[in-house]
């Protein structure tokens, strides 16, 4: 077991290193200078700042020093938000985005699966078509429309929930609901297809021939086998949720990582972008690793040698 974990760890580190390298050089290719915006008419100021951050040194030297700081897990200081270290930003923002993402997952996944199961058991019925239409509608409405409309309806007119910011739990309810809509739609659809697929297997017929009740057949045999493949998709889903949804964070002015991703790329904030990309790569790799571990433990057929 430990040999497997060591091997996976090595691969993860290699992947993260590769991602960091590719991203480092890709960013440098983008035209423009991170400091030009501060004082457009004064080129001297831009050169002074470049020197201050050591960006005028040859690229190779910068890369090596960046790798060394990467080993110390220090992502350096942000270029646009002077004085603020990328590590602080991640430590400050990531829990909020993660909380939103995971709350949406905890809300969306069970409901999505439940809807999927019921619409598979009562397939072809009104409920089944209702779910399908619902998932179609919720995926075709762009999220910034949904967010703004719900903010107005529930926040301003009905005053059920506070409209913005991220202070108490009540503040998190509205954004979590919106983010979970997409998750519900996705899980409902995939769960339904999986349930129908398992429905055609022979061991369901054996179960029926054993004379056990229909409910027990569905729960113990059908759902148990249908849920397993859902776990494989979980890894990537958690990773993308943890990186935050830019639009919902913008509308509800939630201090999450989502917004930082976009502004740091457009603002050519090299250190911030690199920090976020490497951090995301680490999360993706970690999530996949945990999911594989879980899958090995839960599904007997997958042997972890």
């Amino acid at each position, binding site marked *: 077991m430990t040999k497997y974990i060591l091997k996976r760890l090595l691969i993860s580190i290699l992947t993260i290193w590769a991602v960091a390298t590719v991203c480092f050089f890709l960013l440098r290719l983008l035209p*423009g*200078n991170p400091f030009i915006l501060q004082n457009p008419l004064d080129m001297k100021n831009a050169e002074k*700042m470049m020197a201050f951050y050591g960006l005028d040194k040859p690229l190779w030297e910068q890369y090596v020093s960046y790798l060394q700081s990467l080993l110390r897990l220090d992502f350096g200081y942000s270029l646009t938000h002077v004085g603020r270290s990328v590590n602080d930003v991640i430590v400050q923002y990531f829990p909020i985005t993660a909380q939103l993402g995971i709350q949406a997952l905890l809300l969306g996944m069970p409901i999505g699966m439940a809807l999927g199961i019921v619409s598979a058991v009562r397939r072809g019925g009104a409920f089944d078509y209702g779910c399908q239409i619902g998932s179609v509608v919720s995926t075709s409405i762009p999220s910034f429309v949904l967010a703004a409309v719900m903010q*107005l309806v529930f*926040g301003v007119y009905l005053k059920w929930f506070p409209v913005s*910011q991220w202070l108490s739990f009540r503040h998190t309810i509205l954004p979590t609901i919106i983010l979970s809509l997409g998750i519900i739609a996705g899980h409902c659809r995939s769960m339904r297809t999986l349930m129908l697929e398992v429905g055609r297997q022979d061991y369901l017929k054996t179960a029926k021939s054993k004379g056990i009740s229909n409910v027990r057949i569905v729960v113990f045999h059908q759902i148990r086998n249908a849920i397993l493949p859902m776990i494989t998709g979980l890894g990537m889903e958690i990773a993308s949720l943890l990186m935050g949804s830019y639009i919902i964070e913008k509308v509800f*002015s939630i201090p999450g990582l989502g917004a930082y991703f976009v502004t740091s790329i457009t*603002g050519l904030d090299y250190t911030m972008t690199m920090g976020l990309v490497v951090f995301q790569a680490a999360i993706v790799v970690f999530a996949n690793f945990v999911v594989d571990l879980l899958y090995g433990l*839960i599904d007997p057929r997958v042997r972890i040698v």
Partner: protein
Amino acid sequence: MKKRIVAILLALAMLLSTVALAETAAYPVEGEGSLTFVATEPNTLNMVQASSNLDSAVFYLTSAMLYRPYNGNVYPELAAKCDVSEDKLTYTYTLKDAVYSDGTPIVAADFAYYMIATMDGTSAAYYKNGTKYMNGECTAADVGIYAKDEKTLVVELEMLTADFSPELEIYPLQQAFVEAKGEQLGGTPADLMYSGPYVLTEWVYGSYMTFKKNPSYVDAAASFPLAELRLIHSVDESGRYSMFTSGEADVLTFISEETQQMIPNQAKQYVSDAMQGLEFNTTGMMFDAAQGTFLPRDAEVTKVLSNENFRKALSYAINRELLVMVINPSGLPVNRLVTPMAEGNTDGSRFVEDYPLTADYAAPITGDAEAAKAYLAKALEELGYASVKDLPTIKYLCFENGAFRLMAETLQSEWKSILGLECIEIEMKPVQDAVMSMVFLNYDIYFQSVSSSSATPRSFLEQWKTGGAISDAMQSGAPFGSVYSNAEFDALVEQAMFEFDTAKRQALIAQAEQIMIEEHIFVPILLQGGYYAVQDYVQGFVSVGNQEGYMFNHTTVTK
């Protein structure tokens, strides 16, 4: 069975750990006399690197000043008195007794250090061997800014200019503190010294900042009555509107024109001194940063742009009044370089009243289609084109900002309908790239936004002097000299610099302005304005747009 339980616990632990961490976010303290206002949070509070005016808005609250501006005029704060030498070259300020929030006294050296640390190209020229220091020829000690003793600050000028105003709006900055903090200066509330009316107690990036009244502020009793201020960071228009209508926010420092229509009676307008207009690249060259050399641009396009009549045709075709009313009603249409807010000869009068424009050389505010067509015909004739169709394609450089893109599209379509010009093409670039292209002259037409510094119109015109900030932005001795150079214009601006008599100086400025307007090098269109919203129960809030900042000097809340 055991193995499976372990797996599920592992997964749950991973989820719970992140949720618990976030729960510790602090709760706001509901204090009597508190005010919540929505604005965009500053990039940094590092005074040395402070870049955008958003940052200076916060310094207005957290830091004491030698002279503090309020609602249009300036009053002394830490400056007890100011003695001026006969030759008006040396100014000696004696400071009042004041302390930082942690008790250390504010000394003259702090002010001196601040002025030297934040000195840039233009401001250095005023002070003795300031430019030499900037070019590295002498050390900071030789610069004419030094603290004689704890309470007296001495400022020596290189030469006497009419523009220099002794009421310096500068902050104290302790050298030892800056060196100790290094890169972290201004990063978090702990990396700042507070001498102003408020202390920044809490800053949750991207969410909110809390300021508490600073008891040790020099005249805490007389001003800034509010006990607590909360700045909420929000960039989303519908989000801001929802906060205002649901009562979560008392003041919105910036709202869009649409939101203004929704809450007309709470909305207030301000006109900033950011002048926006068209700039033409008549140099025929552009700078290639990769090789560090200058490359020629399309000669035919340069010939067309250098033709004065063509530029006039474009300017006269624009109905500025209608354009501003439609695109940015908070703005002020202008057709001249000195802003209406600039003071005239006598105290009460305005410059624009004392020196009115004569119709023959400036485009009327409402635009003049016939004159535009006439100028265009003359230009075609001079350039030898049979018809409008043969003109080469001219690139209008623009970047993604709602109003800027709309302005580009409207100008293009107006020129097409009025003058029949099909050759103007809009070239979109991301913000960074666009600004770089402007600096490296990689454009034909650019919608420039320049601070018109209404208080001193001369310094605005000075930027177009040969070698001035805009003419020679590159300061790299380009082969073409500078973007615009007119000997007569230079002489007038130079002379105005040393003319102390207001009436004479204003006359010189008017003449210089007329020359520039006639040549249509910079075609002014509007002064950018803006709206901000204040709840009814808030009195005495003054905001001059996000330029100078939010003046809570005498703001009270009666809920």
